[in-house]
């Protein structure tokens, strides 16, 4: 069982969601996050005073998948989220020890 975590540009969220639905992914979790990478932040000006805003808004998408699906999911996210510009984000995969579906109590692969 794998957890695929993707940090992407906010306007790419719909594209990523649609791409995942197309390959049959049944659920995901999103959250609004802030951070910086090579894109750094941006500058704002108030009454002539410049402020460096360090953190850029991004969307974090988390998907729990079975071991076999992980590579396909990663490829789908990367393809959907890419603009070729700096600041497109990152995708990573981690291993999950245990999953429980709260409603039924199912565990492991059955709960994915």
């Amino acid at each position, binding site marked *: 069982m794998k957890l695929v975590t993707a940090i992407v540009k906010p306007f790419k969220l719909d594209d990523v969601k649609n791409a995942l639905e197309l390959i049959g992914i049944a659920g995901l979790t999103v959250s609004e996050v802030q951070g910086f990478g090579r894109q750094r932040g941006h500058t*704002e*000006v*108030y*009454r*002539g*005073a*410049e*402020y*460096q*805003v360090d953190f850029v808004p991004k969307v974090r998408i988390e998907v729990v998948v079975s071991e076999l699906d992980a590579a396909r999911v990663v490829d789908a996210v990367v393809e959907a989220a890419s603009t070729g510009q700096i600041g497109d984000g990152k995708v990573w995969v981690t291993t999950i020890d245990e999953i429980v579906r709260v409603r039924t109590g199912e565990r492991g692969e059955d709960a994915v």
Partner: protein
Amino acid sequence: MVNTGDTAWILTSAALVLLMTPGLALFYGGMVRAKSVLNMMMMSFGALALISVLWVLYGYSIAFGDSVGGAGLFGSPFEYFGLAGLMEDATSEEGGLPAMAFVGFQAVFAIITVALISGAIADRAKFGAWMVFAGIWATIVYFPVAHWVFAFDGDDVVGGWIANDLLALDFAGGTAVHINAGAAGLALAFVLGKRRGFGREAMRPHNLPLVMIGAGLLWFGWFGFNAGSALAANNTAAVAWVNTLVATGAATLGWLLVEKIRDGHSTSLGAASGVVAGLVAITPACNAVSPVGAILIGVIAGALCALAVGLKYALGYDDSLDVVGVHLVGGLWGTIAIGFLASAESPAGVDGLFYGGGVDQLWRQVVGAVAVMLFSFVVTWIIGTVIQKTMGFRITEEDEITGIDNVLHAESGYDLASLGSSGSTAPLAGQARATSTDSLARNTERTMA
């Protein structure tokens, strides 16, 4: 007999000017960080509350009573104490305003002048100290200066020296309101010192839409401020109204143009600031210049103030919301500009330097402006320093970083987190105030039970 048309207009104008102070609270409140929006707005509401009472008790009497000793400096606080004797209709056969209409109209000027100062000391002043300051400042600075500028000689009554002896023109308060508040703001910024992290940390406005609404309300109310200062529903009021409109538009263009050229972007904060800069500058001049003169005053005010707000970084004082850059600089420009741009065709009937009037009016304007600026700066600095050394004016560093709303008012401006912000309440209001561990423990028990 009361002139009903004039009275209706002045009472309406007074209500318009009153709305400027809540408008100012929004204008200032949006410009500070989210953790101090309530304290910023409370300083304006505190002025509304306190100055209303002081004005009725003795403020009107100091400002518009017969000049003590005929010196033109201030009236006696006892002449009309509690507005004694002003409830009867004393208007003559030819008609006129009830005294109370004038009392009300001038009251709201006193209120907003005090509230304007608060922008210089955002995020860091004790509320109690601010209220003490507001009362003392109104008493020994605003009420006398209003006498200097707004109290005209009457039958058997001696008024103020700027209005009657110097003969400087100040229609609606470029000196008494804006230079006065601006110089006071500068003095208080020195007394209180800089905010923690000034010039290093980002202190950007937390809610620009509030600032825009505030600027809009100020502009709306300002028609009462300027056109109402005609004290009649007449041609002078109409000229003042149009000049107030066009100078403000021109100032906004001027500010935005400076930003576009210097920073590359025309900003919403710049537009809101340009509105106020234009309103400030046209205030003293709105009955003395032609509409084209008003455009010149406005566009120069917008550009000048857009440049002046940068002074605080160069000179190292933390006039947090630019009371100096907008009100002092805009007020000085508008007051002195009358000396150049006054036109005898306007209701004031005086020619300035550019209209062939020579420097006669110009020097009077400069003397009036500088006198109010120096008096206000020096006396404010003394009041502020005395408060700082006795009761303390500034909150502690820890409280400032935590946020003044939370520490001083036990409130927060926004409840934005939908999870985990509900907490639990004490069943009795009094217990919400208690902070000892003892009462916390009691509350916890109650909640668990």
